[in-house]
């Protein structure tokens, strides 16, 4: 296995890394989805996470966000447990995760980004509205601010989700398949925006399944339950690494887990 764990940039002294995952393991119903995942996402980098279906890409994002409990290992954000820095981390889920018939406009959804820092009883005021307007403008959706979300195209819905994360003014953004079902224009807008965000020093983790845009990422993580390779894109995106990542699971490990769970045929003595 050619796991590349070289750090592209040495960490700045005294500044904790935005995301540090050590030995993270997650299992669903006794079946591991992530096995001992260890990596560091440095400041100001666009990190692509790719891998086949069921490789645990979304699970990794959710584990970082604390939405899924780790069975072992740890996640630290800016050197601290997530709960202390939650509002500095924004999450952009897949668009099919919500009900688009919900009675809200594009602006309403974007404004929800401000709830992260408002707490339970806070109300968005002039400052939050201004932030939401700026965010809508950054994704080129100002024209559609008052439109009901059902009447937006797939690409526009994705932009609204992105604008909500921008409105949160987080330093770390975790995006789950932001390019799924979007048009070419939206893809261009999103990449341009991502470049600007990383230039501002923000760190972006992007789950992606489209292999044709790999060179847009600064760093690449090839994931298939465990990290198959991680490092600068030009070093990691080799045919060998991709074949290794997409060329089937570590089937013996899966079978071992099945055996332990169901006491399958491999367990019998005869």
């Amino acid at each position, binding site marked *: 296995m050619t796991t590349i764990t070289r750090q592209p940039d040495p960490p700045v002294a005294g500044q904790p890394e935005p995301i540090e995952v050590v030995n993270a393991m997650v299992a669903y119903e006794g079946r591991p989805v992530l096995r001992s995942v260890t990596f560091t996402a440095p400041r100001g980098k666009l990190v692509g996470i790719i891998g086949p279906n069921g490789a645990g890409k979304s699970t990794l994002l959710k584990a970082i*966000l*604390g*939405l899924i409990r780790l069975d072992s290992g740890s996640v630290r954000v800016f050197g601290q447990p997530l*709960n202390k820095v*939650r*509002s500095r*981390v924004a*999450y952009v*889920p897949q668009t099919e*995760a*919500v*009900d688009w018939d*919900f*009675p*809200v*406009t594009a602006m*309403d*959804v974007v404004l*929800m980004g401000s*709830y*992260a820092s*408002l707490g*339970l*009883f*806070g*109300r*968005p005021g002039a400052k939050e509205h201004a932030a939401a307007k700026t965010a809508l403008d950054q994704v080129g959706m100002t024209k559609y601010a008052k439109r*009901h979300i059902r009447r937006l195209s797939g690409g526009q819905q994705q932009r609204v989700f992105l604008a*909500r994360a921008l409105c*949160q003014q987080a330093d770390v953004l975790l995006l789950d398949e932001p390019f799924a079902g979007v048009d070419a224009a939206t893809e261009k807008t999103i990449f341009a925006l991502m470049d600007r965000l990383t230039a501002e020093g923000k760190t972006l983790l992007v789950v992606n399944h489209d292999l044709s845009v790999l060179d847009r990422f600064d760093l690449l993580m090839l994931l298939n339950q465990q990290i198959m390779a991680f490092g600068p894109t030009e070093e990691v995106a080799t045919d060998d690494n991709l074949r290794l990542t997409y060329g089937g699971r570590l089937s013996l490990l899966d079978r071992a887990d099945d055996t332990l769970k169901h006491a399958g045929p491999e367990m019998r003595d005869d």
Partner: protein
Amino acid sequence: MIELLGQVEMDFSQWLAPFSDRWWQETLCSALVGVACGVLGCFVVLRRMALIGDALAHAVLPGVVIAFMLTHSSGVVGLLLGALLAGLTTAVLVNLVSRFSRTKEDSSIGIVFTALFALGIVLISALPRGVHFDLKCFLFGDPLAVGTADLWMMAIIAPLVILIVVLLYHPMKISSFDPVVAAAMGLPVVLLHYLLMGMLSATVVAGLKTTGVILVVAMVITPASAAYQLTNRFWVMLVLSGVFGALSAALGMSVAFVTNAPTGPAMVLVAAGLFTLAVIFSPSHGLVFDRIRRWKLNLHIQSEDVLKAVYRLTESDTPRTVNSVAEDASMGVSRVRSMIDRLRTRGMMIADPNRVELTPKGESRAVQMIRSHRLWESYLVERAQQDVSSVHDIAERLEHAHGLADEVAAHLGHPQFDPQGKPIPPKPGE
């Protein structure tokens, strides 16, 4: 059951006369509960929890009976505590059953609430002799059984629920729309869910004696569903739903007294009536406005077709009569006549019995149509890879969207000729 239904007939005239002080108090309190039901209903409807609303209402029975057994009275505080406990038990049990067994959520709701309801009925039959528990009142509601303590309970719970929703409006909104992101932001999504369940149980109990267990779910989901037809803003939906809830309760009380019908069913029927009206008159999906929109679009298309026919006939120097225009536009003569009238009032056409002419304004509109048609044909061939022979019919329809013609032209780089080589007229004023 039939025997039970037979007992529902009531006589209000004795001491709850219409417009007496007592009647006003009860109507006002019911309206308050109606607002609370309507407001909570929005969350129930949007989170697709209608079934769990029904379940809560039914599951309240064992809680109420146990409270009754322990306190030996239908005291309001015991009732409320029993109901809250039962409601939260239901929510937790449903969650446990669907998580730890191979049971989908709707089935686990069905299993849990029927079991709890059955338990309640068994408990009633186990009550000591001489202790009377009025099941009928519990099932169908009975405004005569509403005591002063019940009125106080309604008058306190309903405003309290409304206040909580106002205070927690934003977190409740995002955890209904996008619970995963809400949780990622650190909002207490699970706690808010159980708070909603708790408020729902309390409100159901408050409305129980007037509406009854079987129908109270209607007061939760029907006004909210009606409001959902009418708006695309969440806060407007909450306000409308609250208003519908209050209206249903107040009108229901009045109808019940006038017709001597039980109040619960009367309220539910009013709510259902409001819902029906909302479905018919909804501005975005309603049947009426949809018809009007289609009718207007048809008028627009037909009048433009007549305009174009007159322009074509003028170009080929054919005499323009109503009949020749009708033939060219392949429309009925009377239809063409009414379109000509329409165009004349808009200053686009001059018409006397023998002759139809375009005014300069009409002519410029007709040129605009032709420009739009030819641009759309070019677009279809070039960008949508359509066959040249098939684009005419599609463009016949698309040309009426002439507001987009300039965008199409810009998109194609301002072509001079359409795919058949016919000239595309320039933009008016160029």
